[in-house]
């Protein structure tokens, strides 16, 4: 099985949200569940440039029923959305699942949509890429890795969902990079300096963010400090 990462132009709900008057930094699709009459429940995490009002968004999104908006605890101007939308607003997800590819992550930012999905093999990759390119007019393969298991499909990572909002984006980025590069392995496969260099931050900033992550993990496990 292959895990692939590819990039396309924003489509569906991400394209509509980028057209809002409010400036958006990023949109992550957390989950999507089908509803009758070609509709879909969409659950999103959206980071704006400034605080927003539900009324203004609803006015600008005809045909989309916003059922819930809540602000995250840690990241500024970042909101969880629950909405009922037309199935076409989840077109990339539909394309992936119709072609039996397993979606893992969809994040839109900087005028592109990054997608991580699992496919069976090379031929399956070609089929999926061909379908997506025909439908969306663009596709750039970014990365790939071999994997034995499908991992967490979109919406399936309960731990991550529990932690979402408890860690800031920068803390998550530090944690994920450190983990991916082997910082937590014994023996360590990478030094703190190398991770700091990868992230283009100082060694002390890296250390501070990792300690905040550890603190937040402990707070979640053991409750707040007295």
């Amino acid at each position: 099985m292959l895990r692939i990462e590819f990039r396309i132009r924003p489509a569906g709900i991400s394209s509509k949200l980028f057209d809002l008057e409010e400036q958006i930094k990023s949109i992550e699709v957390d989950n999507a569940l089908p509803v009758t009459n070609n509709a879909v429940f969409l659950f999103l995490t959206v980071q704006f440039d400034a605080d927003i009002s539900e009324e203004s968004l609803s006015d600008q999104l005809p045909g989309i029923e916003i059922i819930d908006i809540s602000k995250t605890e840690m990241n500024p101007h970042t909101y969880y959305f629950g909405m009922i939308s037309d199935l076409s607003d989840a077109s990339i997800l539909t394309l992936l699942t119709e072609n039996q590819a397993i979606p893992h992550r969809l994040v839109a930012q900087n005028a592109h949509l990054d997608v991580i999905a699992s496919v069976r093999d090379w031929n399956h990759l070609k089929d999926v890429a061909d379908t997506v390119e025909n439908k969306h007019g663009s596709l750039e393969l970014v990365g790939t890795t071999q994997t034995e298991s499908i991992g967490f499909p979109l919406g399936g990572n309960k731990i991550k969902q529990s932690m979402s909002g408890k860690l800031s984006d920068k803390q998550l980025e530090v944690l994920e990079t450190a983990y991916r590069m082997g910082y937590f392995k014994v023996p360590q496969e990478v030094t703190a300096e190398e991770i700091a260099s990868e992230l283009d931050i100082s060694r002390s900033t890296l250390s501070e963010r990792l300690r905040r992550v550890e603190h937040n993990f402990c707070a979640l496990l053991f409750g707040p400090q007295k």
Partner: protein
Amino acid sequence: MTTIIILKSIEKKSTVKEILNSVVDPDEMIYFLRLPPVRCLGPLIQNINPMIEYGVEYSIDCLSEGYETSDLVEFAVDVGADRICIEISNRTVTGKARIDDLTESILLHDRISGDFVVGDHVIVLEELEYEA
């Protein structure tokens, strides 16, 4: 078996050695394929010494400036390549092998298919089949 090793630089001696050690078998035919702007593979191949150290036959070939992926596929068809090895030049932040333009165009090319294996330093396309 016939293997093409695509070389996009002359600094990947360890990658070539990994391929010769763990991917190809002795007595295979290896085509070291130099891509522009790489100019000369002689010193690299001499240093690795494929015939003596790994027991393989080899040839050094190149694609001309302005080559297209179809030229590479044509070369693979001409030599009857069962396998193509492409070095992984770097990785994404999440640890995936980064796919450059060349690798993408080979992977998505209509005429070539087979198995796809991602190693530590190399992407191996094997059991290749070619459309007419």
